[in-house]
């Protein structure tokens, strides 16, 4: 992973401009976002975000609903104009050289937008034409991308007959049909079952290796970000609040282990007692009397916890020790408050009855 990543992944609000070059040292920069702002009237959806993505890197954008992830990705893919700041994609400014940017990127939007009435091959052929892929190259590219997403035998099938996972793979193939250098994926596995999701992860990893693609993806799934991304940026309220490798982000959270414990009797005093234990950095009370204890020394806290329960004559009904996950990182940086999305009021067409999600 990137050795030159920021030492502290935490980025304080308003100081995001201070993030210096990140990623693999010496690697060319594929995407550079400088002080980028998106304003809708008085509402600021993105507030001066900075980051860089190295060539060949998989970069994840995490954040709660309405944090500004999709707005960021839409600015980088030329779909919405930038209010101020700069986004350089593949060496081209998205505001000034939009067409040059479009030629070198592939985009997988959140919704499944391949035409259900056309066949898999027709969908790819039309997009290849939209990217002006020469006729001789077109057939070769289509065959290659179908092979890469394992849809070769479905080439003549109508898209509406495909499952959700297959349609998502078709979207990925569509984004690759013109051999882009940089690939943007907006929540690529949303709505997929776990098996399909893992298949997509494997596919993206293979594509990165075989095509030397730079990928920028947004996701809600921490596991996805953990398994796929070389580096992750956490966005909240339009600000970049943390940036680093998954390992760095986990280390940045106080407490490197999580002990989950449940007592046989609920007592409001438990939280205070657990917080008083040495090495414990945070205690989160969960449902059904379960406490989630973040500690810098998992084994010692476990022993102390068992001893404390014994001394009080109480029994433990459940106990587990885990390493800090990206979920903890996410909650640490974005908080536990539910967010109400503030988005532009745009009517979204409900899916057609009987159509695959």
């Amino acid at each position: 992973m990137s050795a030159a990543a920021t030492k502290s992944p935490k980025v304080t609000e308003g100081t995001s401009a201070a993030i210096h070059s990140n990623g693999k040292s010496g690697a060319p920069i594929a995407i550079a976002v400088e002080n980028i702002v998106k304003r809708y009237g008085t509402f600021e959806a993105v507030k001066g975000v900075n980051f860089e993505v190295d060539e060949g890197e998989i970069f994840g954008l995490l954040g709660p609903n309405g944090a500004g992830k999709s707005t960021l990705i839409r600015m980088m893919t030329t779909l919405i104009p930038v209010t101020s700041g700069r986004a350089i994609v593949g060496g081209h400014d998205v505001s000034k050289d939009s067409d040059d940017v479009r030629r070198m990127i592939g985009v997988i939007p959140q919704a499944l937008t391949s035409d259900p009435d056309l066949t898999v091959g027709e969908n790819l052929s039309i997009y290849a034409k939209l990217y002006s892929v020469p006729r001789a190259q077109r057939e070769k590219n289509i065959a290659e991308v179908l092979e890469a997403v394992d849809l070769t035998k479905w080439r003549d099938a109508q898209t509406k007959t495909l499952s959700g996972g297959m349609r998502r793979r078709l979207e990925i193939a569509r984004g690759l049909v013109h051999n882009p250098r940089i690939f943007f994926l907006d929540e690529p596995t949303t709505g997929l079952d776990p098996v399909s999701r893992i298949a997509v992860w494997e596919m993206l990893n293979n594509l990165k290796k075989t095509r030397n693609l730079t990928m920028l993806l947004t996701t809600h799934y921490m596991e996805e970000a953990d398994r796929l991304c070389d580096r992750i940026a956490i966005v909240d309220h339009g600000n970049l609040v943390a940036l680093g490798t998954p390992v760095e982000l986990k280390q940045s959270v106080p407490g490197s282990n999580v002990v989950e414990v449940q007592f046989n009797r609920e007592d409001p005093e438990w939280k205070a007692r657990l917080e008083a234990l040495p090495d414990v950095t945070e205690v989160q009370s969960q449902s059904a009397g379960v406490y989630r204890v973040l500690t810098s020394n998992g084994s010692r806290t476990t022993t102390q916890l068992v001893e404390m329960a014994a001394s009080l004559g109480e029994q433990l009904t459940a106990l587990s020790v885990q390493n800090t996950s990206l979920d903890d990182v996410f909650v640490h940086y974005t908080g536990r408050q539910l967010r109400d999305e503030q988005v532009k009021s745009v009517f979204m067409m409900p899916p057609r009855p009987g159509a695959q999600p």
Partner: protein
Amino acid sequence: MNRMSAIIEREMRKFFRSPTLMIMSLMMPILQLIILGNAFGGKIVGTHVAVVDHDHGPEAVKVREAFDAIAVNIKTFTTVEYQNDVQASEDVRTGKIDAAVIIPAQYSRRVYAQDAPKLGFVVDNSDLFMSSSLEAEMQSLVDAMNAPQTQSRLATSIALEVVELYPYVNYLKFLLPLTVALAMYISVMIGGGMLYIDDKARGVHEGYLVTPITKFELVFGMNIAGSVKAVLAGISLTVIGSLMAGLGVIFHPEAMAELFCLIVAGSIAFNGMMFLLMVRVNDPLVPRAMFGVLNTLLLYPSGGMYPIAAFPRWLRAISVIDPFTYCVHGFKAVLLKDGGFVAIQYDLLFLFAFGIGALLIATPLFKRTL
């Protein structure tokens, strides 16, 4: 051009994959042609007219014989005997009968005495078409009875010699020009309006916008595809409608070429208008809600159903800028009058100018971003 043709290819493949669109865009105009063409083209028959005879004299008998002749010949009405004119009037009011003729007492004597004899006619004028038909029938009957018994050897009154330029045009034929225009309009409304906004809402346009396609290529690709669909609908309806109405004009190459020009010009005009109306719309409910409003606003002032000369000034102003007006006029000129290119040149000019003008206004309004 390659990118523009990709948009057209996608639209046309979709169009032929879902024949519902094609069927529905033809079904409504054909149904309208069949239902309205037959409903409006007929004559009134089988109505019931009450006869209240207070006279019972020889002239009253003549009147009743004339009624019987109508009942067995053109069958506009049959008579029902009433004794009481108050009851007859009441029954006309309540709809039991359609009209009542009252032959007053002393009617025969007044005829012989040439003392301004009158027949009473009670009619339900809430239905203008029915009442005017019955009145016309009754007036012709009275005129016949007023005619002198012996004709003068020399004609003394002025006669109007009517020369009809064209063979008899029944209502089915009369409606055909409007129906062809309607088929093209519905095709544009569904294919260019509803599907365009649905695609936008489903994110299909988002897929286009991340490609290097230019605004011009995107706008013209979608509009050419929309116009081609409307042309196909127009050609289909012209052929089907002409065969249904019994018009042989479609078998004349020159007329076919003129019709084709009109269909292309009309399709471009309707498509340009629709694109201009929809260019900034995102909500799929809007084109559906607009369908009925636009239909009324454009169809009826076109002169396809009722003459423009009978409209008030403000309605005439709408018909002047309504592309339907020029489509209907052009199709009438070719289908019903065989007027040649001269008769349609201004229609073609307006339709092309309207369509291209609308597109020129709409293109800058089209947003290349979300």
